[in-house]
């Protein structure tokens, strides 16, 4: 049984002019437990919306998202929040660390709403990501690469079933991007989490055995030029 099963997923927005624009129209998509899959996401292909729907941040118009046996479409926002905290790790392109919190506190924040505070594990993750001597640093005191590694640690803090990564290396140079991607994949393997990564960078995509083009999965994006 797949970890993630999506069928007939649809999401549309109403433009300021009142026009309904379908952003997501995915007939089917599955992801197995521990699997690592890359989605090629061109600009405008609805990649962030797609990940937000899986994460339960957005509510689809119709369809089904079943993750770890839980149907998310139709679930209350509160239940989706709680489910996200326990089962999903999210890595954002812009990191979205809290600047007033230290690296360690940022990782611990991820635990507050999920499995519960586990400082030893938070420290382990940061050590594993080479930030043992940067735990008390705040994001503005860290390099971009270090910030991204803190974001990776935070995504894995609750030992999630699935890590969603939205252009996780988009803010990094080639060297740091490769390093961050390697660490992300290693950690997902170590922690037993599946990985669904969206990127438009072919160098990143080519490292994945299983990869799809989101604009082919998403019928609403097929008209968007590459």
């Amino acid at each position, binding site marked *: 049984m797949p970890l993630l099963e999506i069928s007939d997923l649809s999401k549309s927005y109403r433009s300021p002019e009142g026009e309904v624009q379908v952003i997501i129209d995915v007939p089917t998509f599955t992801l197995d437990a521990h699997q690592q899959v890359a989605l090629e996401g061109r600009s405008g292909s609805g990649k962030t919306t797609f990940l937000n729907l899986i994460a339960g941040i957005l509510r689809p118009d119709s369809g089904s998202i079943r993750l770890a046996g839980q149907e998310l479409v139709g679930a209350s926002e509160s239940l989706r929040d*709680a489910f*996200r905290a326990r089962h999903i790790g999210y890595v*954002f392109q*812009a990191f979205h660390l809290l600047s007033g919190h230290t690296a360690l506190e940022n990782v611990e924040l991820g635990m507050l*709403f999920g499995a519960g505070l586990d400082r030893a594990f938070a420290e382990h993750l940061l050590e594993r990501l080479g930030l043992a001597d940067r735990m008390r640093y705040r994001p503005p005191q860290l390099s971009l690469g270090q910030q991204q590694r803190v974001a990776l640690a935070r995504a894995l803090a609750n030992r999630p079933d699935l890590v969603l990564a939205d252009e996780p290396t988009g803010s990094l140079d080639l060297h740091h991007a490769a390093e961050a991607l390697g660490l992300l994949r290693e950690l997902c393997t170590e922690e037993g989490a599946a990985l669904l990564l969206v990127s438009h960078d072919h160098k990143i995509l080519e490292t994945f055995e299983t990869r799809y083009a989101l604009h082919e999965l998403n019928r609403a994006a097929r008209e968007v030029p590459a």
Partner: protein
Amino acid sequence: MSLVRGISNCWRIARKSLRQHALSSSVTVASAALASGLVMSVFALSAQSRDAFSGGETGFDAVLGAKGSELQLVMNTVFHLDTSPGNIPWSVYAAAKADRRVEAALPYVVGDNYKGFRIVGTTEDLFIEFHPREGETLQIEPGGRAFSPLHREAVIGSVVAARTGLGVGSKFLAAHGVTGAGGASHPGEYTVVGVFEPTHAPTDRVIWIPLEGVYRMEGHVLFGAGESFEAQDGEAIPDEHKELSAVMIRTRGSGAGRMLEYEINKGDQATLAWPISESILQVFDKLGWVVLVLEGVAVMVVVVAAGSILASLYNTMNERRKEFAVLRALGARRRTVFGVIVIESTAIAGLGALVGMLVYFATFAAAAGIVREQTGVVLDPWMAHPALYWTPIGMLAVGALAGLLPAWKAYRTEVATTLAGGGY
């Protein structure tokens, strides 16, 4: 997630935010502290002043004096403030003392001072009939004794001793007038033979001398018999020439007091202020609107403090929108971010109430010092008053209320659109 864990998480995030915005948090805490301290001070001071001025134990329940204002009579005789409304002849005192309805009568003569402290002439009954507390008489500190009615001797209150440096064996000259504003000194030194233990009452500010001493001071002229009379050494003073400023009276129960009040006050020779507390309460009742205004101002300050809590939090909402969106993306529910803000505003108010206790003690101590300095009446900041526990509770409630609007703004944060903005 359990409620306790939820609150614990909210507090953890709120505490971090308070530290992060330390300056604005401190300013807001200070305004809440001033507000709660002011409220506690105004309510506790007004209540305690009313009690202290109306309920001071002296062992007497009435004051007999010249025809005129009861309040002036009480202020002058019990609190040693204000001026004497005039004198009464000795016969009024003698009649009162002989009345079956009067249990005790203590005569006072005032008109002189030493360094601003009133000199009160009285009889040796002072040492028996004056009760600073129920069942207790005035106690003289070791090494001292009561004055002799036939000598120029004095027993002084503890504040007088502390402020003037007078002690047993010290000598002083009495000056004319009750205020110490440059009155001429009477010849004839008085010797201090005793110092009263502190009573924390107006008595502490008085110099007590024998009645005869006042009559025999050089320059004092008696008009008790309607004609002037100056006492000569070695010559007894006929009672008809003697005058008194007032007489402290202890009646034999309220029925006796009521009857005496009626009988004396319907005449034109004297006034009986009975019961003593009623005269003072009348003043407080007349000044009740002033207290109400003060209490109103204090409550307004609380409202302003609540407004400042609201404003300080609301102003940070825009810069914190991303923080809330990140928390929500990590799995925080809307009610969690709502709770973070309400806990934050409640914490500010709670800290304010805590610091407000210091403000209260400082304000109360300053006010109590002035009251004691001016009247001898002691006000105690530690004395329980409902305002001391209702104000902190009220501040917490006000703080929570002030957080509702910013919390609602945080509650409405949309994760996807907010995070699309980027940043750390």
